[in-house]
């Protein structure tokens, strides 16, 4: 598992293409929103959190697809499966590498967004990395499972969002609400945060258990 994770990270370290392209994409999405909304709307914390998560979900979708396309193209995935390891470990490797990439992207995009939108920095923002990480974990867990399915079908670019987005509804609602409360400086560790955690736990476990069914030949 660590070997696969290391391989993915090393590949990225050498090419830097995934993280850099995701970064630019996330910024572009934010730019589109800035143009689409009026200045008054942009200063509301609710919009800031919506924006952050829309950018993250769309950038994440591409990221998660890359995770399998590289291996699919050269048929390396079959080789990976021939290794005498549990498919659950392959899942964790793919899942963790994706968490790493998205975390790096968010580490740059989130502060930039806050600055671009002119949202006030406050003490409660210290919770933001944790919330973002929770969102990324849930997204990557479900995303890894769906991408492993989507990548072996025709029209994989379209089938992945079709599968992933409706399933992500609870994560998205919860994450936007937690972040909104957080940006507004309110209490954010309430019910929404617990839903977010529950989503993470449920889909990390589901992904780990179901991955074997998806990848077996």
């Amino acid at each position, binding site marked *: 598992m660590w070997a696969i994770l290391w391989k993915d990270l090393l590949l990225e370290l050498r090419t830097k293409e995934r993280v850099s392209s995701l970064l630019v994409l996330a910024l572009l999405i934010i730019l589109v929103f800035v143009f689409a909304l009026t200045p008054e709307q942009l200063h509301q914390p609710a919009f800031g959190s919506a924006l952050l998560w829309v950018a993250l979900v769309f950038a994440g979708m591409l990221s998660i697809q890359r995770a399998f396309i590289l291996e699919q193209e050269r048929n390396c995935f079959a080789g990976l499966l021939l290794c005498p390891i549990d498919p659950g470990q392959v899942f964790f490797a793919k899942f963790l590498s994706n968490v790493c990439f998205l975390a790096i992207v968010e580490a740059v995009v989130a502060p930039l967004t806050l600055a671009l939108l002119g949202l006030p920095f406050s003490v409660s923002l210290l919770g933001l990395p944790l919330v973002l990480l929770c969102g990324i974990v849930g997204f990557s867990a479900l995303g890894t499972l769906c991408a492993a399915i989507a990548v072996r079908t025709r029209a994989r670019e379209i089938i992945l969002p079709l599968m992933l987005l409706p399933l992500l*509804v*609870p994560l998205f609602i919860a994450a936007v609400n937690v972040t909104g409360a957080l940006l507004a400086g309110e209490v954010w560790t309430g019910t929404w945060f617990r839903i977010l955690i529950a989503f993470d736990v449920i889909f990390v476990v589901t992904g780990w258990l179901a991955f074997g069914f998806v990848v077996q030949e």
Partner: protein
Amino acid sequence: MKTVTTHSGLVDSFLPWLTCVAMLAALAMVFLYVPNERVQGEVQRIFYFHLPSAWMAFLGFFIVAGASAAFLWQGKRSADLLARAAAELGMVFCSLVLLTGPLWARPIWGVWWTWDPRLTMTLVLWLIYAAYVLLRVFAGDTETVARYAAVLGIVGVIDIPLIYISIRLWRGIHPKVEQMAPEMAWTLLVCTGAFVCVFTWLLRLRVRSLHLHDEIRALRQHVVAAS
């Protein structure tokens, strides 16, 4: 060559008639028997088709999940075909819910659509169904795809409670049925019965057609191999 087993031929010959009678009875009750609702008037009668459709959509989802789990467990082709048929039917009934809802909502609420939890939930459910059916369409009809679909079906059902909770917390105005006149309760009961019949009948037809499809394919391969 194995043919489609008709171990329940009796049910198959009986069910269309039962469905026919139940549906006629349901229609008669909705339009002739049940009194108008006091506040909402005529338009409320659509509810007798709306609610059973919603239940059938949910039923479809649970059949998909059950059949998917059975398929992953035992790998039986019939379980896979059942899941597929149930998903297609669930989507049909889910569409009915989404069509009959706005027809009622426009005169009563004054809008076609509102982001009420149950409406949102049904829409999300419809989208998950759509993803499932499209996955089947895009990915073809192989053993592997059957496994993908089964995983998606199960993940979808695991997700339902979470979707439900989060949407409920999000907002809400859907009418709750508080008290029903006995006539209304009877009508609803008959309509639900009729919908269960329609659902079961269509499900059986679809499963059989999928089995026949398999058989034709096998025969074709047989012929190609022979020639």
